[in-house]
């Protein structure tokens, strides 16, 4: 049985707060780029970028990152992920939906570094569910949700799931 633990309003609010925190921490939006990890991280990245635009009236570059060939359990490792924006010297906000073991973020960092040398990389996630297996933490967290390892966290976004919510099952 899936149980909704974050509704659409609370999810919107979490993204709004993350956006304000990004401005606070970076002292503005100069030199900022946002990189979303496929699949749902991209939609969350776009929403943050949209909020920054509404607030500051500035277009923030958003890129998608496909980390499948960087996964530590991938069989076809080695082919390079292509980013369609320049991240050299930029302040990169890396965005994903759920932070769990930290292995996805490790892969994403490798993929980023293959594409340039950012000035700073910050991590924003909608949900931090704990159970890290690598020394990785998020700079911006929408919701801390304590979970058991056997539980599953599902993030839904309207763009592909028709609804904004976080469910636990």
């Amino acid at each position, binding site marked *: 049985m899936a149980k909704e633990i974050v509704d659409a*309003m609370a999810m*919107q*609010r979490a993204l*709004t707060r993350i956006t304000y925190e990004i401005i*606070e921490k970076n*002292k503005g939006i100069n030199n900022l780029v946002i990189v979303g990890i496929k699949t749902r991280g991209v939609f969350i990245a776009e929403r943050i970028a949209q*909020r920054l635009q*509404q607030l500051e009236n500035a277009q923030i570059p958003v890129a998608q990152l496909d980390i499948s060939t960087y996964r530590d359990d991938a069989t076809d490792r080695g082919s390079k992920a292509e980013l369609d924006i320049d991240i050299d010297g930029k302040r990169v906000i890396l965005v994903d939906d759920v932070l769990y073991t930290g292995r996805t973020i490790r892969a994403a960092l490798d993929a980023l570094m293959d594409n340039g040398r950012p000035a700073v990389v910050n991590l924003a996630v909608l949900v931090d569910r704990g159970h890290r297996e690598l020394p990785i933490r998020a700079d911006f967290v929408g*919701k*801390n949700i304590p979970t058991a390892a056997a539980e599953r966290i599902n993030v839904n976004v309207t763009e592909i799931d028709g609804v904004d919510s976080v469910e636990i099952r």
Partner: protein
Amino acid sequence: MTKRYLILQDGTVYAGEAFGAPATTFGEIVFHTAMTGYQEVITNPIYHNQIVMFTSPTIGAAGINHRADESIVPTVKGVIVREIADVSTNRLQSMSLHDYLKRHNVPGISQIDTRALARHLRKTGTQKASIVDVPDAHAFDQLRAMVLTTRQVAQVSTPKAYANPGRGANVVVLDFGLKNGILRMLSDFDANVTVLPYNATVDEVANLDPDGIVLSSGPGDPRQIPDETFDIIRQFQTRVPLFGIGLGHELFAIANGATLQQMPVEHHGMNHPIREQITSRIMFATQGQGYAVNPDSVRETDMFVTHIDMTDGVVQGLRHRDYPAFSVQFFPDTAPGPFEATQAFDEFMEMVTARRGGWLS
């Protein structure tokens, strides 16, 4: 029915019928356009020393229900209505509006053409008014001689600190004319609240180790507030989440370098669409404001405008660029008002939680 008169400073006389207490009263007249929530309005300390006129045609149909009290006793000097409801069928009521006002010695006047009066006040701006038995020269002399207090906050703020205990985050509320709704909302989050008087010092706040600070709403001119309050805001906004409401919003704005202007027509109602800038979401909320933040002055500060009134462009929310500190001009406690405005409390408590590493208690 006893005939009584409402007289205005500019010489206008309206004849009406008495209800509530038979006393003579003086005060600044304001009009409220809400269709519900008369009890919350007449007990809201922001209307301290004012005579409130409701434009909604019938007032009193829900009686008085003490769960809707926003302070212990009514704060207004008088109530003006088109029609006072004879019958109320609310099962939660403990008495009629008439009996309540009578008990607390607040006079009311009904059978006033409140819509004509609202149009008149829109033209003339805020005026002194009086409810009297005889509208003679003597009554006008007394009305014109009346000096309105400018120390409303000192009169309505708590004289001593007190606790509103909970098991969650430690929140300090500065009371500039606190309404119960603010405490009710914080209780919903089980916050452990300490309410401090309006003239609290930096040390008094620091000694309580707050996880977050709320600047309450309140009556009157922000210039009556002691200088130390602005020090509290500037020092603590760098350390803990800070949330200003109404007068608290105005103080947050001033502390960070914005300026205020007095509004020619005040906002007292709940029918203005308000836009949240960051999401373009439209919401409605109860408003009660006679001062507004000058939007041009915000551009020179480290704040951005987060909410705007869509009817006249008045600033309805601010946020600091560098710190987790924000404020709203409207009433987010929704007592009365549309529930969507409570988002601001969720935002504040989520900021408090996030700063404690994501966990509370």
